[in-house]
């Protein structure tokens, strides 16, 4: 984890409350897919640092997505802590990769998609809203077919709000007793302090006790999660 200053190069609209953002970061500080950055404008009145997730990780082309405050503008400087947390761990041998985002932007899955294509995998994205810049090689399928993915895929990269994990399990076609060892989930929760306060608002209940999404996540093995209900 390091602290750096970077300037906003570009802002674009991604999804209702999500915007896309480009900044230039020193090379060593680039997050991995599913990791995050915490960014704030120095000397501003913004009460909270903003969590940003990579949407593109090509050299010289770092794109992030997050719920940006309306006052952020191109040219503003940001103070950034990065990289934070644990991201997706795509197994190098995976040849069939499935992805889906429940109630969030699909753009955060793009870096996993690029890595999967790079290692020669077949890639299926279950969504009704494919992100801009989706490689042509990706098969786009309706979200309602996600229940077929656990049987087909050797690796599943998913995102869902903490309160919607039960809905994600249903979409995956799993019962409360069935596992899905190939799946990882980026659990969306507030991560205001990034661990600095041990505030615990990001806490996720796992079979190994309470874990902090800001430090132990935000990506968790599906089978570790205690899904309520």
């Amino acid at each position, binding site marked *: 984890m390091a602290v750096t200053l970077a300037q906003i190069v570009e802002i674009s609209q991604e999804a209702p409350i999500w915007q896309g953002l480009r900044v230039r970061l020193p090379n060593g500080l680039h997050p991995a897919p599913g990791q995050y950055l915490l960014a704030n404008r120095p000397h501003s009145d913004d009460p*909270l640092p903003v969590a940003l997730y990579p949407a593109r990780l090509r050299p010289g082309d770092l794109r992030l997505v997050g719920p940006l405050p309306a006052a952020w503008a191109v040219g503003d400087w940001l103070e950034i*802590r990065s990289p934070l947390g644990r991201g997706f761990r795509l197994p190098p041998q995976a040849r069939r990769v499935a992805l889906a985002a429940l109630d969030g932007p699909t753009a955060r899955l793009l870096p996993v998609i690029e890595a999967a294509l790079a290692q020669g995998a077949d890639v299926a994205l279950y969504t009704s809203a494919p992100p801009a810049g989706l490689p042509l090689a990706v098969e786009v399928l309706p979200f309602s077919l996600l229940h077929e993915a656990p049987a087909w895929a050797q690796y599943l990269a998913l995102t869902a709000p903490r309160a919607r994990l039960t809905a994600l399990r249903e979409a995956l076609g799993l019962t409360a007793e069935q596992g899905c060892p190939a799946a990882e989930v980026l659990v969306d929760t507030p991560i205001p302090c990034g661990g600095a306060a*041990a505030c615990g608002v990001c806490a996720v209940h796992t079979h190994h006790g309470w874990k902090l999404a800001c430090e132990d996540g935000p990506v968790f093995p599906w089978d570790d999660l205690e899904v309520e209900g």
Partner: protein
Amino acid sequence: MAEARQDLPLLSPWVNAAGALGFRPPRSWPWPERMGAFITHPVSLAPRSPAKERGLAAYAGGFLMHTGLPNPGLSRVLSEHRARWARSAAPVWVHLMASEADEIRRMADRLENLPEVGALEIGIPPWAGADLALRLVDAALGELPVVVSLPYVQVEAPWAARLRDLGVNALHLSAPYGSYPDGRGGLLHGRLYGPHLLPLALEALQRAQVTRLPVIVSGGVFSLEHGQALLAAGALAVGLDAVLWRAGPGEAVPETNLD
């Protein structure tokens, strides 16, 4: 006036609010002025899990957060963090939370003889009446300096005017509680954060004069100017909260044993 107690150890008028920096002094302190004391996350006798309804709601000028104040309980806190406290250049104040005086007494007993503990801060639960509040404070009073932490609205409670004569060293005014729609038809209840609190902090500080105690104020400070306004209005020290979650350039915090 009660028995002579040690003076409150404080290196500068800039501290953190309990809960803003976890259980141990941070490696870097993103604030232009030196850290006056490190206050721990609230510690209870038994472990506390995160609240089932934990969450955060942002609104214009601030946010509300409900966590349940999770912590592993005093024993685990001590075994995991005591060694780091001993290396802290800033005095360490341990913030204790409890709903029974007996819990405070048992925690204070364990902490009184530890040289790495500089003071006790006692959190008064937001729902406490005069009886419980005074019992919690009384249970904490021993040799260590005692700071009593209470939300702004409570400075007007008649019992607050009695704390000085009990021998309390200082008050720590903490941010108010509020409620906000949780997006699912209910309300999230929790503590408020954000620069919008500064007018309420300044007001509470003035009202706290009736207690004739030195007053530390948390809430609403997101710039040096904000904090200086509170000091100019008479605060002993200013408690910083969410501003410390920024990636400020940061001073490395020296690790020097005070002993």
